[in-house]
């Protein structure tokens, strides 16, 4: 395999993303808005939720188990979190007005608990896609019941909403939280023996068992940790939206899933990897933002995201075929 080809394969998406940024920075229709601090804050703010959800489901995904419930776990966590701290009457707790850091810990714990339910379902033999899809549907119903169809926004403490507004230059505070969590997951996956076990299970579960890995237990732990990170996403989501909004969690997780699969075509092609996921999400964000600034209508966004995902999967497949041709 020629070296230029390997380089292209690894950094192709990085180059394309840089190109897109350059085009929108220079294009007369977008040049005066695209590179502004406000626009980058907006793009990175949206990305922060997607980065957290991607970090959450990458843990089970590395073991070969897809988890699409993390968006719904985040929404569930968000409305409960908002319910605990706000001045809105909610089922069970009423208008409790709990201090938000304590409520945040509860939200994260609820995320981990829901992750444990997913893990237990998969451990009992349920297909992971079906188990986490069912979980999403059930949580969607529970969210509607809990929030009674409205957004829980009244009485949000200033400390939390400030967190949602605070920025350092172009970097929103919430983006830094998401970046820290992503780096944490990256470290866990690539620099610890727990991470090696997750990879080993994903590549060959039978062989992993025979080198002493407790496969079922490890996969369960991956789901619990994924739920825990989705719980962090719940807090970030609430801070960003200024309350708990009962949206469909699947709509939240699918763009993150797209970014993750796009990311598997770069940095370490053929494998899900956190830096790659970041590039994938950035690519979608800058393109969508640029197109929006150009005045393209809103429906273009999902069409572009879906199209980019299919293109990425095909390109990755094509790369892989070229790479194995010599053998």
């Amino acid at each position, binding site marked *: 395999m020629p070296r230029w080809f390997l380089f292209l394969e690894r950094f192709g998406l990085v180059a394309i993303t840089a190109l897109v940024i350059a085009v929108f920075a220079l294009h007369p229709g977008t040049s005066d808005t695209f590179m502004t601090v406000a626009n980058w804050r907006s793009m990175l703010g949206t990305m922060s939720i997607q980065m957290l959800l991607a970090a959450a489901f990458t843990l089970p995904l590395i073991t070969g188990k897809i988890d699409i419930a993390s968006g719904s776990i985040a929404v569930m966590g968000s409305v409960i979190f908002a319910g605990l701290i706000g001045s809105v009457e909610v089922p069970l707790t009423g208008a409790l007005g709990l201090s938000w850091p304590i409520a945040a810990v509860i939200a994260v714990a609820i995320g981990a608990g829901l992750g444990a339910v997913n893990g237990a379902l998969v451990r009992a033999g349920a297909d992971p896609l079906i188990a986490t899809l069912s979980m999403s549907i059930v949580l969607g119903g529970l969210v509607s019941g809990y929030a009674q169809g409205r957004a829980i926004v009244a009485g949000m403490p200033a400390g939390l909403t400030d967190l949602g507004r605070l920025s350092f230059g172009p970097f929103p505070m919430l983006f830094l939280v998401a970046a820290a969590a992503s780096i944490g997951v990256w470290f866990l996956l690539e620099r610890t*023996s727990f991470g*090696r076990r997750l990879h*080993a299970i994903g*590549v*060959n579960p039978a062989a992993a068992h025979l*080198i*002493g*890995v407790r496969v079922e237990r490890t996969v369960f732990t991956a789901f619990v940790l994924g739920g825990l990170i989705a719980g962090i996403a719940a807090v970030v989501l609430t801070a960003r939206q200024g309350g708990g909004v009962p949206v469909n969690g699947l709509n939240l997780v699918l763009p993150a899933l797209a970014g993750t699969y796009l990311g598997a075509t770069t940095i370490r092609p*053929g494998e899900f990897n956190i830096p790659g996921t970041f590039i994938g999400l950035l690519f979608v964000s800058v393109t969508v933002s640029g197109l929006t600034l150009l005045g393209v209508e809103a429906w273009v966004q999902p069409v572009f995201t879906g199209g980019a995902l299919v293109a990425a999967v095909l390109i990755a497949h094509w790369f892989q075929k070229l790479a194995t041709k010599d*053998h």
Partner: protein
Amino acid sequence: MTGNEGQPALEITGMTKRYGGTVALDHVSARFNAGRIYGLVGINGSGKSTMIKIAAGIEQPTELEGLSFYGQPASNEHDAAAAHAQGLRVLHQRPAQFLDLSVTENLLLPDVGRGRFGAFSWGAAHDRVRAMLASVNLDIDPRRRFGRFSPAQRTMALISKLLHDDGTGGDARRIVILDEPTATLPEAEAMWLLDQLKAQKAKGHTIIYVSHRLDELFYIADDLTILRNGKMIGTTPSSATNEKDLVTLLLGHELEAAPRSTGAETRTEGAVARIEVTGLAGRDAKAVNLKVWPGEIVGLTGIIGSGFLETCELIFGAKPRKAGDIRIDGKPVDLRHPGDAMRAGIGMVPSDRTEMAVFPHWSLAENLNVTQACVKTGSVPDAKAMIATYGVKAPGPRAKIWTLSGGNQQKVVLARWMERNPRVLLLCEPTAGVDPGARDDLHRLIRAAAAKGCAVIVSSTDADELEALAHRTLVINRGRVAAEIPGGPGSKTKIREKII
């Protein structure tokens, strides 16, 4: 005998294949006559598979002076379809099998045929398959699930498909290339398969048989066609040579004589066994008792389902143990999981390298280090040094594991455990599907482990291997140790007698 014996079925002249700078085949010429069985032999990398692929039209040659089928030159655009039309069929290693579908579906798919109104008729399909199976003297019910038959029966059924895939069940002559069909079969089943194959040559079929098992080659082949380093060494009647001379031809040098010991010296009177197993039971094993002393290599053998393979898996905690006590150096241990066994100083090489040991797409180094990296026991070893120590032939530690030959992959799997200085090594079919050169290397590594004081258990259906390695061999029958055969020259004959 049909009248066409002696007529060339497949003739290759001046075949050369280069991949970039490496020469895989160098002006190779060979002639395969109709109605004969040829053993095609060479160690990994000798060019066997390249030659087969070019003849089958799967790969294009760099240079080719001539290729003809039954005397007719192949067209310039020789491809897989053309080779098929000329009657060439290849049974690849690990052919696709649908164990949960019927025999009929396995033999007819994708073309199950059409009856009235364009609908598919099960009755007609079963009848066609019955005719195909009858032609290879295979008496199995085509309606049954494919997976319920033995691996040898399934292989033979697939061979009948190659002979009759034109749907006629007729007697068109075929050139059939079989790539290690017995690699995963126990010896008794392999012998049955070979006898069935011998019956086919009388019908005018030409069989080219690729295998690393030399005893089989001598049993089945009329002629041996030998390749080494991409060059044709020649074709010789198998009656005109012997195993030792053949190995010398394959390697280009003589095999080192195996150092031998009876194992008796390692067993001092009154000393505690390194591992003692009492009343071990699982699915196949009923009550296995055995003791192995430090430095001793003990063989375990038997037919499939006797429990000889399961014994290792049960000791290692890889399968649920129903009963049985295990003592290491006299101390009882409770091994419920491979992790427990590893902490007790036990290592296991599983029987199926691809399915159970190798992490594909990972590098050689990652595959070597995987136990240390995953279970955090001991420091991560230096992959580069290990490649040299264990004689792994590879471009470097970062090479992908699947680019290595089977023998070199197996060295990596064995090295993974030897690096931990295990007290007990359990090896299941350690050299299945491995060429003679690598097999010799693996045997040397296993002896070296024993010499360092490790107790080694080798589960194998290969009597040659047990004679070469084991100080004594236990034959397992119906889940119990039925016989103990002392090692040394000639022991393989006794082992074979006891298995049957």
